[in-house]
């Protein structure tokens, strides 16, 4: 069934609305979603202070705190979202709605990006203020381009994961948990990723987060040594490729997993 563009756009807005407007109505969520990553920022910044590390490392931690918010959103509100929807009984409603499945995913992504951007900005501002982080931005334009391309690639990965998670049962919870500390480690959230060695760092570059974070750090702290993985322009090209690839793969995976789910009878099977 073909649906006109207007209906799909309305579906995107409808799904995004919950996160753009609804999620900001509950102020306790906002509080905790800003506070929890901030606590991690404080802890890691104090470790660096305790070790008498260069102040730039504390800046790394603050920037990473903001990026953690995006990664958490992708894990729990994108990748695992269809699992929650299945548990709550909403997934079948999405599937019978006369809209593209990608419209639903795009709505989730757009809403999630907006919702998280507010939280990430708060983390960045508060963290920078408390620890007196000094930024030396090389190019604001490049910084904005790199940020948005990173988000495009990350949310593409989120949509792809969402399709894969659709058929997951209870293990979705554990799997999402598993992609926290290990990803923080291999993506170099709290240290320059190159410290892991070039081989590991290049392998970690399969995650757009690794390249995006490295490029953003290079652009935010251009005045000092940041031990970069690759030049920013190279990272940007790789991020663009990742963005296209992940979004295309998400579209294919969604169609395939939906068909597989129907064939195996697991699409709307709860508590499996």
């Amino acid at each position, binding site marked *: 069934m073909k649906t006109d563009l207007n209906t799909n756009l309305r579906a995107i807005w409808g799904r995004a609305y919950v996160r753009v407007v609804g999620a900001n109505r*509950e102020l*306790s*969520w906002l509080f*905790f*979603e800003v*506070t*929890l990553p901030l*606590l*991690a920022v*404080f*802890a*890691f910044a*104090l*470790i*660096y*202070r*305790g*070790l*008498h*590390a260069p102040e730039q*490392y504390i800046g790394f931690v603050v920037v990473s705190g903001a990026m953690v918010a995006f990664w958490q959103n992708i894990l729990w509100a994108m990748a695992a979202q269809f699992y929650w929807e299945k548990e709550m009984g909403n997934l079948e409603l999405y599937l019978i709605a006369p809209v593209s499945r990608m419209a639903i995913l795009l709505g989730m992504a757009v809403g999630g990006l907006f919702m998280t951007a507010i939280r990430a900005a708060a983390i960045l501002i508060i963290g920078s203020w408390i620890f007196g982080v000094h930024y030396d931005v090389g190019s604001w334009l490049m910084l904005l381009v790199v940020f948005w391309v990173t988000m495009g690639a990350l949310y593409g990965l989120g949509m792809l994961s969402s399709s894969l998670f659709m058929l997951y049962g*209870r*293990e979705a*919870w*554990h799997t999402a*948990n*598993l992609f*926290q*500390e*290990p990803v*923080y*480690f291999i993506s170099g*959230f*709290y*240290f*320059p990723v190159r*410290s*892991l060695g070039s081989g590991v760092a290049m392998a970690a570059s399969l995650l757009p987060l690794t390249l995006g974070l490295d490029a953003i750090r290079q652009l935010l702290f251009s005045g000092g040594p940041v031990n970069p993985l690759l030049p920013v322009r190279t990272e940007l090209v790789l991020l663009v490729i990742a963005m296209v690839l992940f979004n295309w793969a998400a579209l294919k995976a969604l169609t395939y997993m939906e068909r597989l789910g129907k064939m195996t009878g697991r699409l709307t099977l709860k508590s499996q």
Partner: protein
Amino acid sequence: MSEALEHSDAPSRLGPWLAAARLGWAIESNWADPFVFMTYQIVRPLFGALILVVMFKIVTGQPTSSAVFGQMYVGNAFFILVVQCVSCIGLVIFDDRERYQMLRYIYLAPIGLGAYLAARGMARLAATTVSILFTLAVGAWLFGLRYHLSPADLPYFSLILILGGIATLAMGIMLGGSTMLMAQNGWSMPEGVSGVLYLFCGAVFSIDILPWPFSAVARLIPWTYWLEGIRRSLLGSGYVASLAGLTNAQILLRLGIGTAGTVAVAWLTLRFAEYRAVATGKLDEKTDH
């Protein structure tokens, strides 16, 4: 029925408690295969420790067998217990009230909410113990840490562990109890509290670098003394310079007082929350959509 309960023997009293612990294990592991669950349980803390390793190496350039790294590593490894238990018990009420909608039946059961929450936490405590042991073993195997636990230190170390475990369970019960009066959107609160404790108890950095009044708070909570006692037992020396003047017995005494205080506050919080939840009808009020 109450008379029968009052005269019940020990095994039958233990029965509901064991059932709650078994339920805790099933829910916590999400009914996964124990091996798969333990793999998940081990991987996260291990990578958390690896982050510390890299941070330490790139800044100091010292070998991981150095004393400072050992203090950080051991503190981080044992703090897993606090994170896991507090988060687990703190979410029990939300799970049972909102998701499984069983809280009203649990309330009616003869076990009592406090014992039920503790039993649920025991399952997580058992699983977390394996994570800690594994993380410590990796520390010795890969990073050259040397633990100096002599047989003479064993009673002290055991007491420290037990008191810290009790304080942690009590904190979990306090948070779990207080969630009876909260809507389900307070689910982040237990994680937030464990994050605050991580900052204040000096799990990975000395509390001496905390500004006042945070450093004063750090000296009030039992986990600061718990970790200091563990470090002294396992590594032969403490981490916090300002606590160096305290003897092992004084550390134990402060931990004991802190634990007693935490248990008392937890008990009062639970009783008050239970009373208010029943009186206002919040006990089985479903607050999600």
